């Protein structure tokens, strides 16, 4: 049963007036013919408003093209069509030999890689992706009652914190092999301090940066702004000037001192005596303010050995754990039933349009054709 994912695209059918207008027989600029026997011509009464078209076959071809284009816009699908074959999905990194053996024993099952796009299972494993999310996506694209078997290596990489809740029971089969670890992109911190060098907290922050192995660059308040990847240290008091707020709003992270006045935020770092820092969003960036002065008396955490790490965690949260043993990773059932889209007809439609366009060009550029629209 055909259907449309985007029925508004059928509004493109209004474009059929274009070829109709092109092919409308233009009588207003018809060539003038001297015809002395006009009185016998005029004696034939005839409705003037009759609409006529030139070159009807070409017009039909062009109308067909426009209709096909409108259908393509509406993203046609064939709803009734489902692939009922059982599905074997292989995690990248699972042992290929065992996977092929499992596939051979599964009969007519479809084998896919669990990677974005779900390519057919083959020799070369494509790069892995967020597997929990992919399992959910795969479940939602399969018809109900299609058996799903997941072939996983002993240790999974790239899972998220929750076990997937799927619409069908899933058989998880653990194979040999190991998934490639997902390299978490960790960027080295770099601090760019702006403001008077007399701030008492400066030496603590410089020491923390040294402890983290991060760069530290102190410039006067009116120096050019650092790149967005740096952490901006604003040492001034009062309200931050416009260049600072603009820089933060365009996606940067700034650390300000207790004497700086910014809108109150949420506490993101606390110790036994109370909040240490609070953060507030600004545009696409983030403003983090120490609520206490950076002195050992006011902030004993400065003296702790893990202060640099705590500061780094505040500025650059560590990646969440994504490794799990396959033993305990069993997707649960009870998820929402798949809303099955059906077979996407866009490819075939595009092919038909290309073919129709070629035919249209051929017809329209024939040498026998008169000089017409």
């Amino acid at each position, binding site marked *: 049963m055909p259907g449309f994912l985007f029925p508004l695209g059928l509004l493109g059918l209004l474009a059929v007036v274009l070829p109709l207008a092109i092919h409308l027989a233009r009588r207003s600029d*018809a*060539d003038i013919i001297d015809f002395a*026997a006009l009185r016998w011509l005029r004696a034939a009464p005839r409705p*003037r408003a009759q609409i006529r078209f030139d070159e009807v076959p070409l017009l039909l071809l062009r109308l067909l093209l426009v209709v096909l284009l409108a259908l393509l816009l509406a993203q046609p699908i064939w709803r009734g069509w489902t692939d009922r074959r059982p599905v074997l999905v292989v995690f990248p990194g699972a042992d290929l030999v065992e996977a092929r053996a499992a596939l051979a024993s599964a009969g007519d099952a479809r084998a896919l890689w669990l990677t974005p796009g779900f390519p057919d299972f083959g020799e070369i494993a494509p790069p892995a992706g967020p597997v929990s999310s992919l399992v959910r996506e795969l479940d939602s694209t399969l018809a109900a009652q299609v058996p799903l078997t997941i072939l996983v290596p002993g240790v999974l990489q790239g899972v998220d914190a929750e076990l997937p809740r799927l619409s069908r029971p899933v058989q998880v089969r653990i194979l040999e092999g190991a998934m490639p670890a997902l390299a978490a992109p960790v960027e080295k911190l770099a601090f760019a301090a702006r403001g008077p060098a007399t701030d008492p907290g400066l030496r603590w922050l410089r020491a923390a940066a040294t402890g983290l192995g991060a760069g530290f660059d102190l410039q006067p308040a009116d120096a050019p702004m650092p790149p967005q990847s740096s952490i901006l240290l604003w040492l001034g008091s009062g309200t931050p000037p416009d260049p600072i707020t603009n820089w933060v709003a365009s996606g940067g992270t700034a650390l300000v001192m207790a004497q700086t006045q910014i809108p109150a935020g949420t506490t993101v770092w606390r110790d036994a005596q109370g909040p240490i820092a609070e953060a507030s969003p600004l545009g696409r960036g983030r403003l983090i303010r120490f609520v206490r002065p950076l002195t050992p008396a006011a902030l004993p955490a400065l003296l702790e050995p893990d202060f640099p790490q705590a500061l780094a965690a505040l500025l650059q949260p560590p990646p969440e754990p994504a490794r799990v043993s396959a033993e305990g990773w069993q997707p649960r059932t009870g998820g929402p039933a798949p809303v099955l889209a059906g077979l996407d007809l866009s490819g075939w439609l595009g092919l038909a349009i290309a073919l129709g366009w070629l035919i249209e060009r051929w017809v329209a550029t024939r040498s026998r054709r008169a000089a017409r629209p």
Partner: protein
Amino acid sequence: MGPDLIPPDVRGRLRTLRLTARRAADLQGLGLHHSRARGAGLEFAQYRGYERGDEPRMIDWKLYARSGKFFVRESERESPLRLWILLDASASMGQADRAQPTRSRLDAAMGLAACLGQLAMNQGDRFGLVVLSDAGLNVIDAADGVRQRDRLALALRAVEPRGGFPALAQLGPLWDRVGPSDLVVLLSDFFDEGTVTLAERLAAAGREVLAIQILSVEERDFPFAQGHRFRDPETGEELLGDGKVLRDEFLSRFAAAQTELAARLEHDGIRHARLVLDEALDVPLRRLFGSGHADEYS
């Protein structure tokens, strides 16, 4: 229109044709037109000096022997046949087919007039031309001979299709010149009522009238398949129409109008023929003057 108004092949076929008048056939006697006085110089009129173009046999050699100068004997021509070529020069005559835009109705009419003049000249008859236009009549008085033929050709080449058919009141000079038993050939498309009326009146006044209707191929076949803007060249009226739609209706109505015209002409004893622009010029002439035609009316 070439340098010669008469195409060579037509000129060749003209030799077999003779201008014949119905009434002339009534007169008893010998010869083609049963003239009472045939040939040049039977009834002496005058001497005149020789001019270039005169035939040597016209020279009076005895007078040359006496005077040492060439004199030509002129005689009264009493041939009963006088041919008047009436050429319709209204704007509708300028119409040409799109397939052959250089050959207009007027070109065909001029060719026919030249053919008629040639025929008349060949048999020594006098012939004249009246160009009918509402801007005024252009009359070449009847005469005979090579010079008259050249005068005719010269006048024909000056004709421009313009305006409408003259009103009957403008036709006074015509009645002054066309004698009671003259042969009148009217070349027109006969779309204008005035043309038919003129033919009828001439016939009613005892002139023998021949009508040659000149039609374009488009009027006969109506080969239009697209939408066109049809314009009447005389009134300037325009009609937007699609050829396919108009065709059947036009052809039937036009045929009916032709039949009615033919009936009117027949009723007044006007011999008529039709020339379509894709036909040879001598087709209507053979139809009118072909062998036996004169006799079958007598």
